[in-house]
């Protein structure tokens, strides 16, 4: 420090004091909670659990959270919306905190919201394949909901890789999906901007399958290494220089927890996803077969809302835009949101524009989700 000028020394002292302050706030925020909307597990199969989110009881209302028998009956009559998240991250990003929760907004709008949580595959699940996740996992959830509501079709919201599952499921079971919403969902896995695709193109998938389940930490490293300086350095420096208060630090820590909390990936399912989608682009080429049946995107005829981020570094916009050219839906709406991949879940846009678009689009195609009101 001795060789620095006076103003530089003052700057270092100021930044040093801010660093100490921010560090203290980070330590205070260590035990911050994630997830805000009450929910209950209603179905499970192996590691997969289906949750139903419950509306907050009005202040002063009698009875347990989730409402009275009357409210339960109303929920049963309302149109269910099933959210299918990716295997590679945890779904609580959709319900991170009360003021940043897509789920809460959807529940508040009157939808009966269900969420597929894939859980953590262990070594005994390493042979679990893509079709198992699709038919036993997602399919099991769909069948449960349809039976519980006495319906033939539900609304499906697929997020990221969960959107790919949702597209495949809708193509194979078109009668079970009334409306489909996809969020940051790739259809073309080989667009020029797709760095992830370039990196895995020559991966030996035989070895990958034999190597066993892939730890979540490895996938984290892969995602962060797409933009390492911004994602592992700059964001912390901005926290330091931005004079973040305790609440902002807590929001930051919630995001951090999510980013570094990735589940392991079942060996066979991940291998198939890399080979079939990234290396062979089968979904787009119409050569994908699951359980002996061809997955033809033209069979997706349900009304479809495709939301994607215009600055997405994981799923480039072109990868999502391709959807419109391949699906059979006549009622197809695509909308680019001016944000990045993570911004689709937690930015101001995520808080306002995205829920509003989904809710109004779904309501326009199914009437009021609260038929008794």
């Amino acid at each position, binding site marked *: 420090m001795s060789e620095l000028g006076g103003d530089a020394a003052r700057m270092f002292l100021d930044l040093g004091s801010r660093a100490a302050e921010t560090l203290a706030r980070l330590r205070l925020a260590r035990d911050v909670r994630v997830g805000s909307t009450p929910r209950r597990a209603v*179905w499970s*199969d192996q590691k997969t659990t289906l949750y139903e989110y419950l509306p907050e009881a009005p202040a002063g209302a009698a009875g347990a959270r989730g409402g009275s028998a009357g409210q339960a009956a109303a929920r049963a009559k309302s149109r269910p919306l099933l959210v299918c998240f990716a295997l590679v991250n945890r779904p609580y990003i959709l319900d991170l905190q009360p003021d940043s929760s897509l789920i809460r907004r959807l529940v508040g709008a009157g939808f009966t919201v269900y969420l597929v949580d894939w859980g953590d595959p262990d070594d005994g699940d390493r042979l679990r394949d893509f079709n198992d996740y699709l038919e036993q996992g997602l399919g099991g959830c769909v069948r449960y909901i349809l039976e519980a509501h006495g319906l033939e079709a539900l609304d499906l919201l697929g997020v990221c890789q969960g959107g790919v599952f949702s597209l495949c499921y809708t193509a194979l079971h078109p009668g079970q999906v009334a409306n489909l919403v996809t969020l940051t969902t790739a259809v073309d896995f080989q667009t020029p901007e797709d*760095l992830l695709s370039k990196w895995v193109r020559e991966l030996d998938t035989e070895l990958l399958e034999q190597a066993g389940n892939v730890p979540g930490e*490895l996938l*984290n490293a892969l995602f*962060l290494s797409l933009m390492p300086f911004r994602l592992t350095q700059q964001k912390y420096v901005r926290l330091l220089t931005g004079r973040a208060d305790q609440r902002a630090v807590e929001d930051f820590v919630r995001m951090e927890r999510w980013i570094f909390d990735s589940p392991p990936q079942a060996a066979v399912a991940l291998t198939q996803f890399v080979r079939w989608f990234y290396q062979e682009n089968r979904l787009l080429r119409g050569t994908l077969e699951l359980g002996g049946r061809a997955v033809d995107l033209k069979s997706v005829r349900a009304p479809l809302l495709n939301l994607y981020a215009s600055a997405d570094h994981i799923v480039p916009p072109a990868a999502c835009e391709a959807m419109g050219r391949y699906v059979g839906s006549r009622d197809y709406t695509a909308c680019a949101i001016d944000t990045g991949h993570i911004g689709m879940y937690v930015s101001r846009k995520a808080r306002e524009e995205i829920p509003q678009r989904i809710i109004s689009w779904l309501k326009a195609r199914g009437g009021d989700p609260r038929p008794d009101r």
Partner: protein
Amino acid sequence: MTEMPFTPGSRESDAAFTAAAARFFELLKTFSAQPATQHGQLPDWGSFGSVLAGQFEQWLRSAPAAGASFAAAAGFPGATVGWPPGAVPLGPAAAQAADAQSAWELLMKLGSLQGELARHWSAIAQDSAQRFIARMQATGGADLSSERALALYETWVECAEEAYAAAVRRDDFCRLQAQLTNTAMALLLAQRRQADKLARAWGLPTREEANALQRQIRELKKALEERAAQPAPRAARRGKAVPRPKARPRPKATLRPEPKAAAAGRGRRTRARRGRR
């Protein structure tokens, strides 16, 4: 679990923050300590660029990209800290000569690929520094003062990301990334084969046997589900007992069975668990 690059070992935000802040301070010190900036003269861009590139390359080497990460995950300490890596943990005496030779060759290949990766890091660091200096000169920015330190930092990150993005998209880098990962996986599997030989010698179940058992369980579950999906035979519909099928011989194994939920195969309703998470 092996500590992964880009993810702080403790996965605590404060540890990651501390590390990033330390690098930030180091960079600011580099900006501020340029003698020219203190005397109002033009900086010596050449030496400044080389200091920046050197610091940056050091960081890149300590936080390699995903190919090397997989090597780390495969359990090779050398994958993240440089060549040469440690010996095969089981030791050549524990394996047949051919296996040991194969593992050794893979280790050598991994080392050579890591050398190639290091050359990429060096090129990215140089390119970042050149981009940064070009931008400073273009904006007439001889001013490396502390007042502008934060703006300089943002510019530096932009230049670093641009240089990185340009390099890691090139075919040769992508190929190298895949080769690193493939070699690390091959090495992991070579080690497993050696471990399996030891297990067999000691009468323990091997991974191959465990896989075979899991496949059998999957087939049995599938058969059960197909049977359950079939319409019930007439006798059952009339309420008569249906003779149970003969039980298939249980596989001889000392492995633990799958958890009950997995063995059940089909989904089940859960008892409602209410309340916040």
